[in-house]
C-alpha cells in the first residue's frame, strides 16, 4: 500500500528542517521504503510497499497446574477465549497455544503516528493550545494522512488528520482535497514545489542566470524559507561601492538574504539577486521594494562609517570598560590588557602589541553594533583608514580567524599571534570560572577557539608547546587543547588514530610543529614492507620487558653476546643508532625499519629467557636499549598491526 503523511505547520525555521527530516526518515512504516521532503510549512513522508496487515503470531500461555483439576482448566480456557479441548498438558501444567491475529497497519499507524510526530526533537519548541498542551516547533494547522485511498484517523492538538492540504499562503487555495497520486501535482498547481531539491535547483539556476555569486549556505537557507522560489535582480547606486565590499556583502547576505553580484572577478557589481517566495514580479514592485530597503541599509552603513571616524580606535580603548566580555569575566578592557601581556609573553613585537591594544575597539563602533559578524574586519578597515601601519590593521582585520574548519588562519605573523592569544585568553578565563564545554553544549565556542589555536600553531609553524601556553595549574585546559590536537591530526589531517597515539602519547609535550613532522614521517614510512612487522616486534619487546620483572637494566656486556643473531642484532643496533643520530625523522624511521630482518632472526634463533641469569639479563638489556633508542620519534608499540585487535 502507499502512504502519505503531511504535517502542515506555520513557518518552521529553515535551519531546523533537515534535522527533522532525518528523524522522519527513520519512521517505522512496516517494511516500506520511505521518502521525506519539506517546505517551511510542511513536513512530508511518502512511502510505497506498506503491508496491509502485520502477520499473525503464535503465543503460548501457561495455565494452572494439572493438579488443580478440570474446573481450573475450564476457567483458564474461558478466560483465554478458548475451549478446554484446546488446552495441552505440558509437564505438570496446562498450556494454551494461541494464534494472535495480525492487525491492520492503518490502525497501528493511527495509534503510532501522533507520538512519532510530537516526538520529533527540535532545538526549541513551543506550546500553543494552552498550558500543558502538546509541544512542537510551530503550531500544527493541518494533517494529511493517507494509506492508499483511506485516511489514517488520528488527532494532534485538536487537528484531525484528513485528505485536505493547503497551497501557497497567498497564491494557493487553503483547502485542497488530495489523493496520494494527485498530491504533488495539486501542490504544484497551488504554487508549492514540494521537492527541496527542485527548489534548490530553481534558485540556483535563476540566480546564476542573473549573475549571482553563489553561496551554498545562503542557497540552503533560501530553499527552506520558500515554497515557490523565484529570483529577481535589483540594482543599487554605484556610489555605494565606495563602502568596503565586506560591509556591502554582509548587508546583502546576512541582513537581506541577497546574493551579491560580481562584475570583474573579486569586484562587486552594483546589483543583487533576491529570492522571492512567489511566482513573479511583473510590475517590478518587489524589486523596487527590495532596492529601497537595501538603500536604507547602505545609507545606515555609510552613516555608521562617517560617525565612527569621528573617534579613532585608539581613543576608544577606555570605552571598552563598558563592553561586557562575559558577565562573570568583566569587560573587554580587562581582556584587552591581558591579551597585550600575552602577546608580549609570546614574543610579539611592537606591531602585534599595538594590534592587540586596538583589536576590540571596534566593538564600540556603530558599524559593529549593527553588523556584529563584521567584528575584527571593521576594526581592521578603520585602523587602515586611520593610518595604522599595515601589519597592525591586517592583524586586527584577521584576528577572529579561523572562523570555521574551512576558514584559513591569519596570513600575517602579527595576525597569527593576536588570533592565538585572543583565543587563548578566552579559553583560560572561561576555564577559570568553570565554563567548560560539555557534550554538545559549547555556548562560548571554546572548541572552535581551541581548534583555532591548534591550527595556528601547526599551520603557522609557531614553535610553542601547548604546555607553555598555559599555567601549571591549568591542567584541564591543557588536556582540552591536547584533545583538540588529537582531533585535528586525526579528523582534519587524516592521520590514522594509532599514528596519532604513537606520537602524541609520548611526545605530546613537544611543539605541534614537531608533532606534525613526526606524523608526516611516520605516515610516509608506514606503508613500507618492514615497518609494521617491526612495530609488531617492538610491541613484543615491550611485553617481554614488562613480564621480565626487571626494574633495573645492567650495562650491556658485549662479552656475553653470543655470535650469530644476537651479536648481529647488536652490531645492527650500533649501525642504526649512529645512522639515525642527525637524520631527518623520515630517514631515521626508514633506517630503523631496516632493523627488521635482524630482529626477526634474533627472535627466531635466540632464547631470551636463557637459563643463565646473567645472559638473560644481558639479552633483556639489549632489547631495552633497542626499544628506548629507537622509540624517540614515535612509540611504535602504539601502532596497530595486522596481528592486533583494535
Amino acid at each position: 500500500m502507499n502512504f502519505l503523511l503531511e504535517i502542515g505547520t506555520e513557518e518552521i525555521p529553515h535551519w531546523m528542517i533537515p534535522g527533522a527530516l532525518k528523524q522522519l526518515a527513520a519512521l517505522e512504516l512496516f517494511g516500506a521504503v520511505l521518502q521525506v521532503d519539506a517546505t517551511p510549512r510542511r513536513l512530508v513522508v511518502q512511502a510505497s510497499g506498506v503491508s496491509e496487515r502485520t502477520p499473525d503470531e503464535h503465543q503460548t500461555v501457561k495455565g494452572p497446574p494439572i493438579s488443580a483439576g478440570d474446573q481450573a482448566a475450564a476457567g483458564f480456557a474461558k478466560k483465554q477465549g478458548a475451549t478446554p479441548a484446546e488446552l495441552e498438558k505440558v509437564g505438570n501444567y496446562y498450556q494454551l497455544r494461541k494464534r494472535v491475529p495480525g492487525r491492520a497497519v492503518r490502525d497501528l499507524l493511527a495509534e503510532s503516528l501522533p507520538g512519532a510526530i510530537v516526538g520529533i526533537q527540535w532545538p526549541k519548541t513551543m506550546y500553543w493550545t494552552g498550558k500543558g498542551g502538546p509541544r512542537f516547533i510551530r503550531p500544527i494547522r493541518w494533517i494529511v494522512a493517507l494509506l492508499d485511498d483511506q485516511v489514517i484517523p488520528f488527532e494532534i492538538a485538536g487537528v484531525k488528520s484528513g485528505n485536505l492540504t493547503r497551497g501557497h499562503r497567498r497564491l494557493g487555495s487553503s483547502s485542497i482535497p488530495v489523493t496520494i497520486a494527485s498530491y504533488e501535482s495539486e501542490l504544484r498547481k497551488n504554487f508549492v514545489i514540494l521537492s527541496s531539491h527542485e527548489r534548490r535547483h530553481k534558485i540556483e539556476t535563476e540566480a546564476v542566470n542573473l549573475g549571482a555569486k553563489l553561496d551554498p549556505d545562503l542557497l540552503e537557507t533560501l530553499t527552506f524559507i520558500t515554497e515557490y522560489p523565484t529570483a529577481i535582480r535589483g540594482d543599487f547606486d554605484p556610489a555605494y561601492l565606495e563602502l568596503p565590499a565586506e560591509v556591502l556583502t554582509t548587508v546583502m547576505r546576512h541582513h537581506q538574504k541577497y546574493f551579491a553580484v560580481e562584475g570583474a572577478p573579486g569586484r562587486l557589481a552594483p546589483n543583487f539577486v533576491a529570492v522571492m517566495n512567489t511566482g513573479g514580479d511583473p510590475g517590478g514592485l518587489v524589486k523596487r521594494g527590495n532596492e529601497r530597503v537595501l538603500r536604507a541599509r547602505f545609507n545606515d552603513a555609510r552613516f555608521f562609517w562617517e560617525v565612527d571616524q569621528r573617534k579613532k580606535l585608539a581613543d576608544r580603548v577606555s570605552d571598552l570598560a563598558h563592553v561586557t566580555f562575559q558577565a562573570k569575566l568583566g569587560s573587554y578592557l580587562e581582556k584587552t590588557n591581558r591579551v597585550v601581556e600575552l602577546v608580549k609573553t609570546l614574543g610579539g613585537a611592537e606591531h602585534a602589541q599595538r594590534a592587540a591594544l586596538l583589536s576590540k575597539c571596534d566593538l564600540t563602533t556603530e558599524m559593529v553594533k549593527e553588523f556584529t559578524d563584521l567584528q575584527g574586519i571593521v576594526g581592521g578597515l578603520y585602523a587602515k583608514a586611520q593610518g595604522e601601519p599595515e601589519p597592525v590593521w591586517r592583524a586586527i582585520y584577521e584576528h577572529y580567524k579561523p572562523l570555521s574548519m574551512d576558514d584559513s588562519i591569519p596570513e600575517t605573523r602579527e595576525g597569527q599571534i593576536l588570533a592565538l592569544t585572543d583565543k587563548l585568553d578566552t579559553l583560560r578565563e572561561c576555564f577559570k570560572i568553570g565554563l567548560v564545554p560539555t557534550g554538545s553544549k559549547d555556548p562560548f565556542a571554546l572548541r572552535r577557539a581551541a581548534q583555532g589555536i591548534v591550527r595556528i600553531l601547526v599551520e603557522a609553524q609557531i614553535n610553542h608547546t601547548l604546555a607553555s601556553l598555559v599555567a601549571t595549574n591549568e591542567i584541564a585546559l591543557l588536556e582540552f587543547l591536547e584533545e583538540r590536537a588529537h582531533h585535528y591530526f586525526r579528523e582534519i589531517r587524516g592521520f590514522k588514530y594509532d599514528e596519532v597515539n604513537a606520537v602524541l602519547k609520548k611526545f605530546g609535550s613537544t611543539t605541534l610543529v614537531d608533532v606534525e613532522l613526526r606524523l608526516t614521517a611516520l605516515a610516509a614510512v608506514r606503508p613500507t614492507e618492514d615497518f609494521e612487522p617491526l612495530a609488531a616486534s617492538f610491541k613484543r619487546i615491550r611485553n617481554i620487558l614488562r613480564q621480565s620483572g626487571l626494574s633495573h637494566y645492567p650495562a650491556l656486556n658485549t662479552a656475553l653476546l653470543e655470535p650469530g643473531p644476537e651479536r648481529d642484532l647488536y652490531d645492527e643496533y650500533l649501525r642504526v643508532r649512529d645512522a639515525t643520530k642527525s637524520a631527518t625523522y623520515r630517514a631515521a624511521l626508514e633506517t630503523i625499519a631496516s632493523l627488521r630482518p635482524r630482529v626477526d632472526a634474533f627472535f627466531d634463533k635466540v632464547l631470551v629467557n636463557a637459563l643463565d641469569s646473567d645472559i638473560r639479563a644481558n639479552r633483556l638489556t639489549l632489547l631495552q636499549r633497542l626499544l628506548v633508542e629507537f622509540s624517540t620519534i614515535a612509540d611504535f608499540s602504539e601502532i596497530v598491526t595486522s596481528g592486533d585487535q583494535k
Partner: protein
Amino acid sequence: MDTFQDTILKLKRYWAERGAIIQEPYDIEVGAGTMCPETFLRVLGPKPYRVAYVQPSRRPADGRYGENPNRLYKHQQLQVILKPSPDDVIDQYLASLEAIGIDLLKHDIKFEEDNWEAPTLGAWGIGWQVMLDGLEISQFTYFQQCGGMDLDLVPAELTYGLERISAFLQGVESVYDIEWAPGVKYSEVRLADEVQSSVYNFEMADVERLWRLFSEHEAECKGLLGQYEKYPSQGRFPVLPAYEQVLKCSHVFNLLDARGAISVTERVGVIKRVRDLAVGTARLWVDQPQ
C-alpha cells in the same frame, strides 16, 4: 495615498472589527508596547482578552539626533494582543495588510524565525519577523512565558512598525518625509523631539540623579510589593501602580545605559533588580482576586 494617521486608523478599525478593545497609548515611558500592562499583565491568567493600541516606544540608545533616516529614539508601534491566539491568526494578520492597501498578490511576504526575549520582564516567546519585499514590517510572537511564569493561554502578539510600513506605503526614503496628516510631515510633528531627546539622553541626563531616581522607584515598588501579603482587601491592592514603578525603573535604566553610565559589573545586577520587580508584580497580578 494613505497618511500615517490613515494607516493607524485603518489598522485600529480592522482589529476593532475582530473584537479587540482599542486602547490609547500608555502614559508612562516604555521601551516597547509589550511592556504596557495591557500586554505584560493581561497575558497572564486564564481570562481571554483582545486589545490593540498604538504605543510610542522609547529607546534612548537608538536616538540619532534626527540625522538618520531610519532610526528613532521614539517610534510608534501598533500592538495587538489576541489571547488566546485564534487558529487562523496568520491569515488574519495578512488580511490586515490587505486592509491598509498592500496587495499581497503583488508582493513578497516571508516569515523568518525571530524569537523574542525580554530578560528584564522574565518574558519570552516564539515567532517570526515578517518580511515584506525584504523589509521587516512586523514582529509576530506566540508568548510562552511572562514574569517567569508559563502562560495559561498562549496569546499572539502582533507588533507593526508603523513608521516603516508608512514609509513603504508612501514610497519615501526617510521616516521624516512620511506624511503624517494631509500636508503635514513626520518631521514637523516629531523632529524636535528626536533632536532634543538625543541631546538630553546622550549628553545632559544627570547620571547621579538618575541613579537616585532608579533607587527611589525601586524602593517604592518594593515597599508596595511587601505589603500585599497582609493587606486586608487584596482585590483593591495597588498592583498596577506598583508595576508603573517597574516601568519607571526600566526607563531610567535605559537612560543610564544610553549615557554609558552602567559598567559591566553593574549591568547584570541592575537587570536582575528590574526583573525581580517585574516578576514580583506579575505574581501578585496572578494571585490577586479579580
